[in-house]
């Protein structure tokens, strides 16, 4: 709880990079481009009463 995770989307390389603040954890996934759909930031829950906060963004 109270972990902060950054999600970085690179539209040129078409990949998403995850970093966990305060750690060395870095994870990268290549994103397949779909011309007929829109890519959105998202959260995914499984259990009840969990909460997620969006902290802000940085454009690079």
């Amino acid at each position, binding site marked *: 709880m109270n972990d902060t995770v950054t999600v970085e989307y690179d539209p040129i390389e078409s990949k998403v990079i995850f970093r966990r603040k305060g750690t060395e954890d870095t994870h990268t996934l290549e994103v397949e481009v779909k011309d007929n759909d829109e890519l959105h930031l998202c959260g*995914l829950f499984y259990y009840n009463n*969990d909460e997620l906060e969006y902290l802000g*963004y940085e454009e690079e």
Partner: protein
Amino acid sequence: MATGHNLFESKKEFKFSSDLKHTGISVVSDTQIKSTEGYSYRFALMEPALQVGGGKAVKVGFKVKENQSNWLAVGVCYKNTVANSDYNFNYSTLGHGAYLVSSNAGTYRLIKVHGLRSTQAKTTRCQPSTTT
């Protein structure tokens, strides 16, 4: 748009959508969501959509406010693909177009579900875990 280099200096640009989400998720504010049901995977999307196929990279931050059950995930997903599944997510269902990292009791795993593949991979820098 943020103009500086200090991450999280602006809460503008993206916000949680009150429409693009599962009914079992409540939008507490533009920047905060809460799960109101349990024991099924449920998506909540942010707006606007990310710019694909060019443009500038975007980095955003999420804070896990409450996670007593020790599982949730953040990342990116394709709107139509997820909406066509009523914002549900099922590991055994193909074609859900989502690229996520899941928090599992302090361990972080990658989740990639797209097209004909559904994979999970744990990087070497994660702590060991037996559940997802």
